[in-house]
C-alpha cells in the first residue's frame, strides 16, 4: 500500500508540473481573475438583486465556466499526451499499475484545479469583502439593512466547487480511458458534464410521485448513471444568505461528490485495464 501511494504521489507530482506549465491554464486563470475583478465595474447592470449578489454571481460563473472547460480539456489533454507521446508506455512498463497511473493523473489535475478555484475564490472574496464594507457604511448612513457576506461560506463554496471539478475530472478520465482520440474524450466529456448539470431535473421528477412506472424507471437509471452536479451550486445561499443553508448540506454534498469520484475512478480503472497501450 505504501509503494502504491508513493508511486501515485510521484505521478501526481509530474502531472501537476506538466499541467501548471500549460498556457491554457494560465490563460483561463487570468481570464477568470479578470472577470471577477471586472464584476465591480459592471454592477450598474444589476436589477435589484443586491450588488453583492451580482458580483458573487460573476465570480461563481467564472469559476463554473472556466473551471469546467479546464477540467474537461486539461484532463483529456494530460491523459492523451501520455498515450500519444508514448510516455505511458515507459511508465506502465515499470511496476506501475493502471490504477496508480490513472489516480496520478487525477490528483495531478485536481491539484491544478485547486489552485484555479482557490485563487479565484480569494479574488472574489477580496472584492466582496471590500464592497461589503462600503455597502455596510452606506446602509448604516441611510438606516437600511446591511447586505450579508459570509467569508466562511465562500470557503465552503470554494471547497464544493473544487469537489465538483474533481467529479468532472473523474468523469473525463473514465471517458478518456475507453476513448481512442482526444477530441472524442473532450466532446463526450463535455456532454457528460452538461448532462450531469441537468441531472437534477430527473431527480426533481423522481421526488414527486408522478409519471408511469417506465418513465420513473428510466429517470431512476438516469439519475444513477449521471452525477448531480447542480447540487454543488449553492454559492448564493452559502455566501450571501448562510442562515438559509441547512447545517449538514455542505457535508452531504461533499460526501456525495466523493462517492461519485470513487465510482467514476473505479470504472475508469476497469476500462483502462482493458486498454492496449
Amino acid at each position: 500500500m505504501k509503494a502504491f501511494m508513493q508511486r501515485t504521489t510521484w505521478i501526481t507530482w509530474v502531472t501537476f508540473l506538466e499541467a501548471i506549465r500549460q498556457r491554457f491554464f494560465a490563460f483561463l486563470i487570468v481570464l477568470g481573475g479578470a472577470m471577477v475583478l471586472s464584476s465591480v465595474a459592471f454592477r450598474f447592470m444589476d436589477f435589484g438583486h443586491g450588488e453583492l449578489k451580482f458580483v458573487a454571481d460573476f465570480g461563481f460563473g467564472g469559476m463554473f465556466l472556466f473551471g469546467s472547460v479546464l477540467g474537461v480539456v486539461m484532463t483529456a489533454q494530460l491523459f492523451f499526451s501520455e498515450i500519444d507521446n508514448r510516455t505511458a508506455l515507459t511508465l506502465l512498463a515499470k511496476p506501475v499499475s493502471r490504477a496508480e497511473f490513472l489516480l496520478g493523473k487525477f490528483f495531478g489535475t485536481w491539484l491544478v484545479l485547486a489552485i484555479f478555484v482557490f485563487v479565484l475564490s480569494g479574488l472574489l472574496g477580496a472584492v466582496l469583502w471590500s464592497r461589503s464594507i462600503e455597502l455596510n457604511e452606506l446602509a448604516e448612513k441611510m438606516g437600511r439593512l446591511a447586505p450579508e457576506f459570509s467569508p466562511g461560506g465562500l470557503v465552503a463554496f470554494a471547497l464544493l466547487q473544487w469537489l465538483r471539478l474533481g467529479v468532472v475530472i473523474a468523469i473525463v478520465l473514465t471517458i478518456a480511458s475507453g476513448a481512442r482520440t482526444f477530441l472524442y474524450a473532450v466532446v463526450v466529456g463535455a456532454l457528460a458534464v452538461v448532462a450531469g448539470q441537468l441531472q437534477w431535473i430527473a431527480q426533481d421528477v423522481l421526488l414527486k410521485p408522478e409519471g408511469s412506472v417506465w418513465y420513473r424507471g428510466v429517470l431512476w437509471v438516469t439519475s444513477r448513471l449521471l452525477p448531480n452536479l447542480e447540487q454543488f451550486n449553492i454559492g448564493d445561499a452559502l455566501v450571501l444568505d448562510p442562515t438559509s443553508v441547512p447545517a449538514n448540506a455542505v457535508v452531504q454534498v461533499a460526501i456525495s461528490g466523493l462517492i461519485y469520484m470513487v465510482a467514476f475512478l473505479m470504472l475508469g480503472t476497469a476500462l483502462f485495464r482493458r486498454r492496449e497501450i
Partner: protein
Amino acid sequence: MTSAAISVRHLTKDFRVGLRGLKLRAVDDLTLEVPRGQVYGLLGPNGCGKSTTLKIILGLVTATAGEISILGQTYATAEARRRTGFLPEAPYFHKFLSGRELVRYCARLSGVAPTQLDQAVEEALTLTAMTEAAGRPIGTYSKGMLQRIGLAQAIVHDPELVILDEPTAGVDPVGSVAIGRMIQEMRSRGKTIVLCSHLLGQVEQVCDRVAIMDRGKLVLEGRVEEVLSRRDRHVITVESLTPAARAAAEAALAAHGAKVTSVTHPRRSLEDLFQELVKGSRDA
C-alpha cells in the same frame, strides 16, 4: 518455471481494425526463448510484429492466444516489471524535466529505495555518459541524448532484463556505437538484453542470438555465428599475393579436391571507416 529470461509459446495477436472489426494478425504462432545473460536480437522489417511482441511480454498489450513467461512469472506482474527495464522506440519524455529528474522519477517508480536513489541515478547517468547534460531540460536534448537518457531510465533500478526497442533509431553512427558499447557493458554485468533493431551490422556485433520475424512469424532463430556462417565455404586472408603465388596455391588446393571460387580484396565496413575518420568526436 523456466530458466530462460523470456519464454514465448505459440503467441498470437490479432488487432481489430475498422468499424467492421476486420482482423489483422500482428503476431502469428510465435515461439521463442531468450536465455539469461545474453544479448538477444529481434529483427525484422517494419510491421513484422517485433514491437507488439515486446508489448505483450511487458503486459502493455494482451495476447489473443499463447503463453508467455518473463523472469519466471507467468505474465508481466509488477514484480517481473520491477526486474525489467524498457526503452521504447523513439522515446519521448516530459520536456520540462531535467535528465536527472527523469531518471530519478523513473527510479522511484521502479522501487529504488530512497537511500540508494542518488547512487543509482548517478551510476545510470555515468553508464550512459549523460552526467554532464543531466542538469539540462530534456527539451534541449539531441536525438542521441534522448536515447541515452532513455537507456538510463531503463537501467536505473539495476534490472535483470533490459528490453531495448530500436535504441539506435535516428542516432548517428558515433552515438550508435556508444549505445552498442553500453549494451556490451550491461552484458558484462550479467544482464539479459533483448534488442530490436534495424541496424543489422550492430546486431551482428553485439548480439549472442538473433531471431528474425516476418509478417508476425518467426523465420529464423539461433546463435549469430551459426546463422551467419556458411559451412561449405572458407576465407583465407593473404598478404603480398603475387600471380605466381596465387597459381601455386590454387594448384595445391586442387590437388586436395578444393576449388578457389573467388579472389577479392577484403573490404572494411563503412562504419569502421567512419569511426576511424571521426574518432574522438562526441555526441553533445
